[in-house]
């Protein structure tokens, strides 16, 4: 029998690695790492985990998730909560909030995106991506110009670095999309 790596097992493994205290503390030592590495990796763990969804359950979910809209709404709302400077602070100081982060980011952001993105058409994807770009640019700008530390646990320089990278991310997504629109293949469905 061929030993196939099951994606959902990889998701569980990734989640477990991220939860190891030294790994967790390393990623939470900087605002930039928590927001742009730890939280995205937790979402990735949930995304991989969703590959293990049994077919019958995936069908039941799909019945309530026309074009992936419900799932992307859920992921956007959960994402908004973890973008609050307060939430990032509290995830360091309060064990209950840390647990909420480790459960909600994979299950309420990564997994719904995995179940919804393939079902989303051109318009839904476009709206979602426009919101991602706008959020990256808005928050990036805020972090870059705020003279005050927005997180009590992080340094101002760290916050400004995060701001610069988020502006770069927003700009990069725009460039990739522009490239796709001009020269790529797009299925308008």
């Amino acid at each position, binding site marked *: 029998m061929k030993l196939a790596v099951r994606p959902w097992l990889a998701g569980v493994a990734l989640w477990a690695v991220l939860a190891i205290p030294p790994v967790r503390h390393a990623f939470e030592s900087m605002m930039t790492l928590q927001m742009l590495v730890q939280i995205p990796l937790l979402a990735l763990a949930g995304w991989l985990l969703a590959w293990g969804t049994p077919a019958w359950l995936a069908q039941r979910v799909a019945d309530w998730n026309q074009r992936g809209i419900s799932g992307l709404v859920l992921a956007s709302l959960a994402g908004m909560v973890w973008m*609050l400077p*307060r939430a990032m602070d509290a995830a360091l100081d309060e064990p209950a909030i840390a647990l909420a982060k480790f459960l909600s980011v994979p299950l309420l952001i990564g997994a719904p995106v995995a179940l919804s993105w393939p079902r989303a058409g051109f318009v839904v994807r476009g709206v979602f991506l426009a919101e991602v770009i706008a959020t990256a640019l808005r928050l990036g700008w805020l972090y870059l110009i705020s003279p005050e530390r927005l997180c*009590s646990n992080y340094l101002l320089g760290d916050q400004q670095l995060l701001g610069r990278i988020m502006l770069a991310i927003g700009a990069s997504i725009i460039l990739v999309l522009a490239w796709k629109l001009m020269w790529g293949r797009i299925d308008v469905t």
Partner: protein
Amino acid sequence: MSVLRTLLVSLVLVAAGVGVLAEATDGFRAYTTETARRIHVREHPRAVPPLPLQTASGARTDFGALRGRWLLVEFIYTRCTTYCSVQGGEFARLQDELAGPIAAGKVTLLSVSFDPARDDPASLARYQRLHGARGEGWIAARPVDAADLTELMGVFGVVAVPDGLGGFVHNAAIAVVDPQGRLVAIMDWDDAPGAVHYVMQRLAP
């Protein structure tokens, strides 16, 4: 059918999401920990435990002994060379502007070190001298043991982060403790006029 069900689920999710966001931001008022700490203190005054302190003269006192008057409290570490140097100056200014109530024993200024391992009484005295402390009414002190420091920082919501250069970055502020020993307000560290106004308003008969 699937469209209607999706609409229904999405509306429920949005309603739940707004509810969670409202909860997480104290009704869309506090997006940062610092704002939240100020709102919580104002709306739910916290009792300050009667923890012991060692003052710049080496004497012992405690938060219990300091009850019965208004306390304006700042958290410091004396090696700080950045804005804390101005923070100390603000306290000297408070000492001038509140000279009357201080002399009457109705107000005391208190600088508490969150770096007690290095801030011995001599350092605390030097800090006060450096920032122009005059006469009585301004106590500089350090918590007596590490557990007390942790508890005190928890009650006041003080967070100090190592700045990578041997110092700290901290959420400096002027905290107001009322005569019953309750933390009732937190102001910007450079808002001495606001602190004076707050206390004078409540001292007026």
